[in-house]
């Protein structure tokens, strides 16, 4: 089943012509943003220098840190009156990254979500429970409008109150759920504890954090569903950039909207199909916030063979990150954000270690931080108060609950060269 068969199956010369036309348009749109205008001018480049798709390699990369410099609206290519919504995503330090959408952008995004949901076999007959955060996180509203556009009955259940979520699935005969894989597993456990089941549910769409094939098998067998991987990032609308088809063998990246490259993250050199590297995306239809050669930081590869479903380019499921970004319960966290918070607290040193674990299928972050010798009052109360204060400041900065442990001065490892301050102990499940 197709939602937009023409675009989903566009191949060969027709696709290349459309991509080239849209790439040139995107460059001229990007020139309205001072950051890109200056960068292109410095390289002596304009849309006219792009004669074929390979010429994209002439363009400079755009990094997440660049977007942060533009806080809040520095990357908007249209006047503020044309922006109809913003979302935010955590930046590498302090300030978040703001992403903006025109009315056309929202329509294009909803179309992509509708393609994805139709591709996995959902129809207007289905009932869709959207169990993700509905605020500034793109996963909530993004899926919501796409599912509505498709014509499904949408339940904006958001997160929390798992027993109520389960009750709704059964009372409303929900056939499809969208949430993080971690939360899906949590729902599964609560269902089992309650001694009930979810007989109406047949399709699960999971994303916003990396999950393994083992986890897929677990979710599929325990919930009797088909589970599909959803990929995206706020900088490219949000979820919906690439999505699995029923083959469950790689994610189709929508080539009419995104031009994808795989590069060696160290040299920037372009890699071929089957070679593992960092995914770099150039938007082809974004009006409010066009992005040229955006470094996603996600490690994957382009799959070589054609997919029996008839759609185009596929990327492998995400294998990791080229930077130190962590995804904790769907929220992006950079260790530098933690460092930034700790530097602002004189009672503790600036050495820290971050441990990430999965407890009851939910990500938990523990931060060890060294007590500052001078700040020790001798009293336990002062220490406990300090611990609470650090947790609160981290929560403000990361939007995440963390466990803070005060450790003795000088007890954390010191690093020569590249510091390894993050220990991710999340296994497969």
């Amino acid at each position, binding site marked *: 089943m197709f939602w937009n068969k023409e675009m989903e199956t566009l191949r060969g010369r027709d696709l290349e012509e459309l991509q080239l036309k849209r790439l040139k348009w995107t460059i001229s749109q990007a020139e309205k943003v001072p950051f890109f205008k200056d960068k292109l001018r410095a390289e002596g480049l304009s849309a006219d220098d792009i004669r074929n798709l390979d010429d994209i390699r002439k363009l400079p990369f755009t990094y997440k840190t660049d977007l942060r410099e533009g806080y809040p609206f520095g990357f908007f290519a249209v006047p503020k009156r044309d922006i109809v919504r913003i979302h935010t995503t955590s930046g590498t330090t302090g300030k978040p990254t703001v992403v903006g959408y025109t009315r056309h952008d929202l329509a294009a995004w909803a179309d992509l979500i509708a393609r994805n949901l139709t591709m996995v076999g959902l129809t207007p007959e289905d009932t869709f429970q959207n169990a993700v955060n509905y605020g500034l996180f793109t996963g909530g509203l993004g899926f919501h409008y796409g599912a509505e556009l498709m014509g499904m009955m949408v339940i904006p259940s958001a997160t929390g109150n798992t027993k109520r979520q389960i009750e709704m699935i059964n009372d409303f005969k929900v056939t499809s759920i969208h949430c993080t894989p971690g939360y899906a597993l949590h729902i599964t456990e609560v269902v089992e504890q309650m001694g009930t089941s979810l007989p109406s549910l047949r399709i699960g769409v999971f994303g916003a954090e990396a999950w393994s094939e083992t986890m897929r098998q677990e979710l599929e067998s325990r919930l009797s569903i088909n589970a599909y991987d959803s990929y995206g990032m706020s900088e490219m609308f949000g979820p919906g950039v690439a999505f699995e088809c029923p083959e469950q063998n790689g994610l189709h990246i929508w080539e009419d909207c995104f031009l994808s490259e795989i590069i060696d993250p160290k040299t920037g050199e372009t890699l071929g199909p089957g070679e593992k590297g960092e995914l770099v995306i150039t938007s082809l239809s974004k009006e409010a916030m066009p992005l040229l050669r955006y470094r996603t930081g996600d490690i994957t590869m382009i799959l070589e063979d054609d997919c029996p479903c008839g759609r185009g380019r596929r990327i492998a499921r995400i294998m990791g990150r080229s930077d130190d970004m962590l995804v904790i319960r769907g929220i992006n966290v950079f260790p530098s954000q933690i460092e930034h918070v700790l530097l602002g607290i004189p009672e503790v040193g600036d050495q820290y270690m971050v441990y990430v674990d999965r407890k009851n299928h939910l990500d938990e972050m523990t931060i060890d931080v060294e007590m500052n*010798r001078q700040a020790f009052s001798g009293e336990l109360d002062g220490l406990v108060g300090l611990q609470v204060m650090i947790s609160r400041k981290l929560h403000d900065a990361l939007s995440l609950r963390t466990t803070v*442990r005060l450790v003795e001065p000088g*007890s954390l490892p010191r690093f020569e060269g590249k510091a390894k301050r993050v220990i991710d102990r999340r296994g497969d499940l």
Partner: protein
Amino acid sequence: MQGEFIIKQISVFSENKPGRLAAIAEALEKSNVNIFAFSIAEANSFGVVRALVDKPDDARSVLEKLGFAVQFTDVIAVRMKDEPGGLHEVAQILGDAGINIEYAYAYSGREAAVLILRVSQAGEAILKIQAAGGSLLRESDLG
């Protein structure tokens, strides 16, 4: 006058993990510091080791050299009879004197049992305890 009854307790920040107390005790042994009394107060992942010792300045410097965060804390010590009812008698005095205890621990000394108290207003507490008939120890009376 009340100052002579204020005793320097050594408070050491310690992580709550195996071997930390041994490290502290070993350091004190090596510098020939005798411990009269000690207690551990703990929050989930860390705690404070509190001790009364014969050479508080030596103890502090050796522990700081090892990297520990150390502070002196003012406490007072009250004599108790080392027999049934001893604690009751002293506790009654404290209660009558309206003294709120932040924390306390005790040891059995050579001459008497001793109750060590951390209170918010040590000077005032000393006067009240004396007025209520309690007997306080000086630093030199410890042990």
